C-alpha cells in the first residue's frame, strides 16, 4: 500500500488518485457547481445532519440489524458471519439512506422535482418514496430491459406518484437510463435535482453517496463492538456502481487489519462477453461525468454489459473504488450468475432470508471465503437489499414457470 490515498482529502477535491472529476457538458457545469457548493455548505451543518439522522431513524427504520448468521457460520465451518441487514430498511434496500440525504439537499437548494436513474428499481423506488414524503414531483429513468424484468418495481414507483420513463435508446439498460436522465437534467436544471443512486458520476456525487451511505459501516462497527468487542477481519459487499460497498467500507478504510472485498457481476463469466466485471476486465476511461474504470473497446466505445442482476449491470464503477483497488486497500472479485443464484437459494434455506440477487454476489463470496478462515475470525457481509423483486426471475433461471395471472 502506497498511502497516497486519503479519503477525506479526496472527497473534498473530487479526485480519488487520478479518478473522479467533473466531465460534463458545459450546459450542466453551472448546476453541478451549485450542487457542489450546496453540499459543501450543508454537509457538516448541524440542522441538516439532524434532519438526515432523524429521518433515517424514524422513517427508514435505522439502525439496521447486524445479525449473527449462526446457521451459515456452522455450515461453512470457518469464520463467524455477520449480516448487515440493509434489506430491512424501508423500501427494502440501502438506497434509501442516500436518497434521504440528497433529497434534503435538493429541498435546501429550492428544487421541486427529483429525477433519478434506476437499474433494479430499488433506487427509483427509494427516490419515488422520498419524493412522495417531501411532496416533490418525481420522474424515474429506467432502461426498457429493466422495466420488463422488474415490472413490480415499476408499478411500485407509479403507486408512489412517480412517472417512470422506459428508456429505449442504446442497449436499454442502466447506462442508457443514466444518459437519458442527464439529458433531462440539462433541460430542467432550474427546478430539478438529479438524485444519483450510486457512487458514480461527477463530483460531488461520489462524495455525497459515500457520506450518506457510510451510516452502514458506522453502525456495523459499533454493533460488532457491542456484540463481541472487536473489528471485523473482512467486510464483503456487492459492487455495481458501488454505493452499498463504499458505505460498507467507509469506516474501515483507515483500519488496515480489515480486509475489504467488493463482489462484481461476472455474468456468464469473465472469459465471456456477457459480463459486467469492470474491475477484472475494464480500463481507465471518461464516461458519465467521471474518470474511472470502464468496460470499453480499444476505441473507447463503452461496452454493452450483462448480469442477471439489473443493479450490477453497469459498465463502470465509482472512482473511489478504483482508487482503493489501485492502492491495494480493497480487493474486487468477480461472481458469476450461477454462483449468485446458488447463493440466493443457499441463504434462503440456511437463514430464512430472501436477499436481493445483487447482495447474493457478496453472499457467494462469503461461501468461498468463510471456510478458508479460522473460527475466531469475523466476516461482515452486507445484504444490500431484499430479494422479493427477484423471485420471478430466479424461478425463470431455474426453468420454473410461475403463473402470476
Amino acid at each position: 500500500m502506497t498511502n497516497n490515498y486519503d479519503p477525506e482529502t479526496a472527497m473534498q477535491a473530487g479526485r480519488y488518485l487520478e479518478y473522479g472529476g467533473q466531465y460534463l457538458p458545459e450546459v450542466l457545469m453551472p448546476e453541478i457547481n451549485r450542487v457542489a457548493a450546496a453540499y459543501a455548505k450543508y454537509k457538516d451543518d448541524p440542522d441538516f445532519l439532524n434532519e438526515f439522522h432523524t429521518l433515517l431513524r424514524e422513517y427508514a427504520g435505522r439502525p439496521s440489524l447486524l445479525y449473527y448468521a449462526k446457521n451459515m457460520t456452522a455450515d461453512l465451518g470457518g469464520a463467524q458471519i455477520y449480516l448487515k441487514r440493509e434489506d430491512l430498511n424501508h423500501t427494502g434496500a440501502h438506497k434509501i439512506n442516500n436518497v434521504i440525504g440528497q433529497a434534503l439537499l435538493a429541498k435546501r437548494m429550492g428544487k421541486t422535482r427529483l429525477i433519478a436513474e434506476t437499474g433494479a428499481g430499488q433506487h427509483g423506488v427509494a427516490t419515488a418514496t422520498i419524493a412522495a414524503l417531501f411532496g416533490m414531483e418525481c420522474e424515474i429513468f429506467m432502461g426498457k430491459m429493466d422495466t420488463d424484468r422488474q415490472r413490480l418495481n415499476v408499478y411500485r414507483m407509479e403507486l408512489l406518484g412517480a412517472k417512470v420513463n422506459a428508456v429505449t435508446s442504446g442497449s436499454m439498460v442502466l447506462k442508457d437510463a443514466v444518459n437519458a436522465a442527464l439529458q433531462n437534467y440539462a433541460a430542467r436544471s432550474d427546478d430539478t435535482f438529479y438524485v444519483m443512486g450510486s457512487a458514480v458520476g461527477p463530483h460531488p456525487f461520489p462524495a455525497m453517496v459515500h457520506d450518506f451511505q457510510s451510516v452502514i459501516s458506522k453502525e456495523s462497527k459499533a454493533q460488532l463492538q457491542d456484540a463481541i468487542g472487536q473489528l471485523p477481519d473482512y467486510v464483503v459487499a456487492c459492487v455495481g456502481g458501488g454505493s452499498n460497498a463504499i458505505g460498507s467500507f467507509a469506516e474501515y478504510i483507515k483500519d488496515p487489519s480489515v480486509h475489504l472485498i467488493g463482489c462484481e457481476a461476472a455474468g456468464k463469466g469473465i472469459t465471456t462477453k456477457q459480463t459486467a466485471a469492470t474491475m477484472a476486465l475494464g480500463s481507465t476511461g471518461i464516461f458519465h461525468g467521471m474518470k474511472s474504470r470502464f468496460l470499453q473497446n480499444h476505441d473507447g466505445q463503452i461496452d454493452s454489459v450483462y448480469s442477471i442482476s439489473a443493479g450490477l449491470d453497469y459498465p463502470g464503477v465509482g472512482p473511489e473504488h478504483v482508487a482503493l483497488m489501485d492502492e491495494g486497500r480493497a480487493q474486487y472479485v468477480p461472481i458469476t450468475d450461477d454462483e449468485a443464484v446458488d447463493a440466493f437459494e443457499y441463504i434462503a434455506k440456511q437463514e430464512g432470508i430472501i436477499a436481493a440477487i445483487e447482495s447474493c454476489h457478496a453472499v457467494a463470496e462469503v461461501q468461498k471465503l468463510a471456510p478458508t478462515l479460522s473460527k475466531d475470525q469475523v466476516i461482515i457481509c452486507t445484504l444490500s437489499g431484499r430479494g422479493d423483486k427477484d423471485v420471478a426471475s430466479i424461478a425463470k433461471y431455474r426453468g420454473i414457470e410461475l403463473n402470476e395471472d
Partner: protein
Amino acid sequence: MSKLTDAFNNGKAFIPFIVAGDPDEASTLNNILAMAKAGADIIELGIPFSDPVADGPVIQAGDLRAFKGGITVDKIFNIVKAARQQIQTPIVFLTYANVPFKYGYDRFCAQCQALGVNGLVIPDLPFEEQAEIRPFTQKYGLDLIMLITLNSGDRVPALAKAAEGFIYVVSTQGITGERDEFDHRLAALFAEIKQYTEVPAALGFGIHTPAQAKALSQFADGIIVGSAIVELAAQHGTEAAAAIGQYTAEMKAALA
C-alpha cells in the same frame, strides 16, 4: 494564425456537421468534398460514440448507422487523409472525451496534426478538465474549441478569455413561442462574449433554414448546423452528397 479563426474572414461562416462513417467511409468522404465545394467555411466531423449524452436522437441515429458500417477511429483518420488530398477547408473533430483519452491524448493530437485536423470540440471535457489535454493540443497546434451556453452565467468571462479558434455557442433552451425573448438573451450573450475576446463565436442549436441562419447571424459570427444535415444523410444514405452540397450552398448564400 489559427486557420479556424481565419475561416471567419469570408462573411459569416457556415459550419456544417456530419457523423464520420454515416453510413460508410466512402460516403463520408463524398459528403465532405461536397460541403467544401459548396462553400462550407469549416467542416465539423463527428466521431461516433456509444453513449452520446450531449446529442439528440437524430445524431444518435447517425452514430448507430456509422457503427453498423464498421467505423473506427483509425478509419476516420483515413477519411480525413483522403479529404486533405483534395480540399483545404479547415476540419474540426467533435468527439467525446473518452475517444482521445483511450487513444492517448498525445497520439491522438499528433495524428490530428499530421492529417490536417485543425481543432477539437469535446462536449464532455469542460473548461475545468481541459488542462489534461491542453498540453497536447498546444504541442500539435490544434485549437481546443470552447463551448458556451445560455446558462453559463458567471463562467462566461473565463471561458471566453481561454477560447481559441472559435467559440461554439450552444443552447438546448430554445423554446418555440418564446422566440423573441430567446433572441434577446442570445444577443446579450454574444455581446458579453465580445467584451472578453476577439475570437469569433458561432451558434449551433438546431438551426435548420437559411432564413433562421440569416436572422441569427445578426449577432453570431457563424452558424453551425448538425441535425438538419444528418437528417439528409439519413434520407439519402450513400447518395447524400448532392443534397448535402445543395443545402450547404443555400445556407452559405443566406449568410454571405
